[in-house]
Structure formats: structure tokens, C-alpha cells
């Protein structure tokens, strides 16, 4: 079941269109109840956007407290994103901090066309990518025994320990060059489409497609070379 909400900008909840796609049942009561829940969510998103706009204006006029509010509002989301770039606590903290410093330095360039969170996600992706590039020059990623990965893959998804899965994912993606690692993370770990990946990386959509294809090929070869059986 998938519900898509078409919401160009922040409109009043009663003006909102709600379309149900591929729903196994089409009970109008269910849809109405769901739409009121969604409307409340949209209202909350709109009020957050207004707060963001206000805080950005105040930050640009030199009020540090306003920026502290923005950091406080988004640090958990940024921390979750940056955890995909490193699993080291100290590096993770530094990366989160770097994202907000970079965001502050570029804040005058924020046009408000997209929500602040999306803009911040782009900065976070670039900071993470630069970190991987530095890392690939400095040292290789810590490996993981292939038996361990095989063992994880034989189990049901819900039986896999999340930390083990994350460690395995991190380790074998770490064997790839930063570009390949980034595109695979965005496309298949974060499940972003080509358009979103292009926005986050600043690449063209064609480049994203080509890079994805190359990265998949490299990953496949890497897994095969390590002795893992790969299907078509």
C-alpha cells in the first residue's frame, strides 16, 4: 500500500489533495481519518518551516541564539545521516559539527526554494563525501571476514542484529572508491531515486545513472572476488 501526498509548498490542510495508489481497499472513512492525520503532520511541517525561516533571518542579522535553535532542531537528523559515513564516535561528532559550520558559512546562499532540512542534507552529503575522500587517501577501510557477511545473509532480515548489519555494510562499501560508495549509499541504502541523488550530490542525472551502474559492477566484482556467491 502506498499513499502519495501532493503538496506543492505549505497550503492549508483543507486544500490538500490526497491520492491513494495501489491500496488493497478503498474505504473512504479510512482515507478521511488518514487525511486528517496527514493534515496535522503538514501543519507541523509548515510551522517548522516558518520557524526555520525566522531563525535563518535572525542568524543572518548576527543572532547566534537563532542559529543555536536551528542546530538543536536538526542535529539528530544530521547525526543519523552522518552515522552512515563513519562508525567512529569522535569522527561522527566532528562530522556533525562540520556540517553545521559549513551550513552557517553558506547560509547567505540559502534561497528558501526547498526546506532547510533538504538544503542541510545536501551539505551533509558533501561533507561526508569529502570525509570519505580524505579517508581513502589516508588509510583503507577496516575489513570484515566474508564468513561473517555470509552468515548475516543466510538469516532472516528481522533476525539480523542491526549493529552487525551496519558494520558489514560499512566495511564492504568501504572497499569501494568514495564516488561509488556515495552513489550506492544514496541509491540503495537510503533508497533515493536518481533525481534526489543528483540533487544531493550536485551531479547530473545521467552521471548518477552511469556512476550507479559502474559502482554496482565494482561491488559485484568485489563480492565475487571475496568468495561470495552472487545471483543475477
Amino acid at each position, binding site marked *: 500500500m502506498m499513499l502519495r501526498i501532493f503538496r506543492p509548498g505549505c497550503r492549508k490542510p483543507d486544500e490538500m489533495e490526497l491520492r491513494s495508489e495501489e491500496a488493497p481497499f478503498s474505504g473512504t472513512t479510512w482515507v478521511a481519518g488518514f487525511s486528517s492525520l496527514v493534515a496535522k503532520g503538514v501543519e507541523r511541517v509548515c510551522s517548522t518551516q516558518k520557524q526555520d525561516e525566522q531563525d535563518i533571518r535572525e542568524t543572518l542579522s548576527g*543572532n*547566534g541564539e537563532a542559529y543555536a535553535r536551528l542546530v538543536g532542531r536538526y*542535529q539528530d537528523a544530521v547525526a543519523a545521516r552522518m552515522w552512515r559515513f563513519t562508525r567512529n564516535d569522535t569522527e561522527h561528532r566532528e562530522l556533525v559539527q562540520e556540517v553545521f559550520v559549513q551550513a552557517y558559512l553558506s547560509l547567505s546562499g540559502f534561497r528558501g526554494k526547498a526546506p532547510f532540512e533538504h538544503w542541510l542534507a545536501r551539505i551533509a552529503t558533501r561533507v561526508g563525501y569529502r570525509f570519505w575522500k580524505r579517508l581513502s587517501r589516508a588509510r583503507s577501510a577496516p575489513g570484515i571476514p566474508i564468513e561473517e557477511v555470509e552468515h548475516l*545473509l543466510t538469516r532472516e*532480515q528481522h533476525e539480523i542484529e*542491526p549493529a552487525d*548489519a551496519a558494520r558489514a*555494510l560499512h566495511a564492504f562499501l568501504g572497499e569501494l572508491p568514495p564516488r561509488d560508495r556515495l552513489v550506492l549509499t544514496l541509491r*540503495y541504502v537510503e533508497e533515493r531515486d536518481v533525481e534526489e541523488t543528483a540533487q544531493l550530490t550536485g551531479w547530473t542525472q545521467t552521471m548518477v545513472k552511469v556512476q550507479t551502474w559502474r559502482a554496482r559492477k565494482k561491488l559485484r566484482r568485489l*563480492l565475487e572476488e571475496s568468495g561470495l556467491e552472487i545471483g543475477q
Partner: protein
Amino acid sequence: MNEVEILRKLAAAAARERVPGVDVVGEVIRTIGVTGDDVYRPLAWVAGFSLAAALPMVVLAYNNLEALTDPLQEMFFAFAWMTL
């Protein structure tokens, strides 16, 4: 299972992992070197008043210094003004 299915399976399991919480507000504010404008506003007023008070003193001091360093020139200037 192909390479994408492997990625997706591990990613789905990894998504349940608890991300360590961080609080970087203090560090970020210290790094970018801005604070609330309330902190600097009184200081800005004091600095403004000090500047306003110091300016006439600088002008007076400069004139006095000129008079001390070259009294003859000062006298000629005064004479020139009188003849004009």
C-alpha cells in the same frame, strides 16, 4: 541474491540501529564565533559613546601639537587671517 539485494537486506537491518545522540550546539556556536546579539549590544553602545567623546579630543590634541611644534607658522597663519 544479487549485489543490490545484499545491500538492501543489510541496509534494512541496519536501519533499526540506534544512532548515538550528539549535542553539538555549544561547539558549533563557539566555532563560528557568534553569540546572541544581546551580549554585544551594550558593548556596542559603550564603544559608540567612547568614539564620539574621543573624536573632539583628537582634533584638539592635533591642533595643540601643531602649535607646539611650529609656533612661528601658527603666528604667520594668524597674521594671514587678519590681513584677509
